[in-house]
């Protein structure tokens, strides 16, 4: 099923702190091999938005999924 909102990560702003990954209640995010956050498991995402609220770099946005 398509998520209502998708996670969009600004790789220029992401500093790879790992906060979003550590505190995601469903372990949906991972750090990739370039030390940037990545929405690796969209199917498990519950769109809680906590990653967006906790990102210190304003690098995560939940966007309307227009597909």
């Amino acid at each position, binding site marked *: 099923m398509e998520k209502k909102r998708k996670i969009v990560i600004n790789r220029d702003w992401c*500093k790879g702190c790992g*906060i979003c990954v*550590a*505190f995601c209640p469903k372990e949906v995010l991972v750090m990739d091999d370039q030390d940037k956050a990545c929405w690796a498991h969209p199917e498990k995402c519950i769109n809680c938005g906590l990653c967006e*609220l906790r990102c*210190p*770099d*304003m690098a995560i*946005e939940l966007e309307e999924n227009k597909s």
Partner: protein
Amino acid sequence: MAVKDYMRERFLPHIWCAGCGHGIIMGNMIRAIDQLNLKKNDIVVVSGIGCSSRMPGYLDFHTMHTIHGRALAFAMGVKMGQPELNVIVPMGDGDALAIGGNHLIHAARRNVDLTAIVMNNSIYGMTGGQYSPLTPTGKKATTAVYGTDSKPFDVVALASGAGATFVARTTTYHVKEMVDIIKAAILHKGFSVVEIMSQCPTYYGRKNKMGGAVEIMETFQEKTVKLGSKKAEADPELMQRGVFVQEIQPEYVESYQALTAALQKTAQKGRGLGKGEHHG
């Protein structure tokens, strides 16, 4: 509006370290402002010096980056000058409690309608990790090689004691609570102090082997309790979060405006302008 719409985007990514709590505070302060539907032109953000004080530069409001410890003094001038403006004052440990301590207690005593955000990361980050008046006893820092020499301030107790009429505390882990508290603080007509426990993984965290940003935020999650909760009653030693003071008292600028209005009314009633007289 999106958070990005409130920022001076060309200056991002910001200068704060990876995992620094200040970015979390900035983002949620913007969300609070957005949820209150405040107009950008009605907001002035005044800071002093330090990592915390770099915040205004990134925000698309009227912004002032002033001198160390004096943010509240400048803010007082702005608020008296244009009382309709919303004046928000983000400060760090030193700005609010060391060099700026005197201005904090006087702003609180006067109950001026300002919103002070104390970004407590228990260290002086910008200058490389010296201890602050908020560093817990015995912790290490570059000027506390043998551990700090004294107790830290209890910001909530100090602000309350000095007369602040809205006093709250939260942490960078408790983001939803943070937005609600900041909203209430801005709406509150009087001097609001919001202490937000933040993390400095680069200096405070490293020097005291507290891990990184995630580990420090986990301690915020585990070692703090909601004010008035059963957990708080069970362990009074734990740091409490929530709104500690929220009361309406005469606000300084409003009281002054009432005085001037009354004086001008009396003057007008008394007589018209005589020969050779003029205002000023």
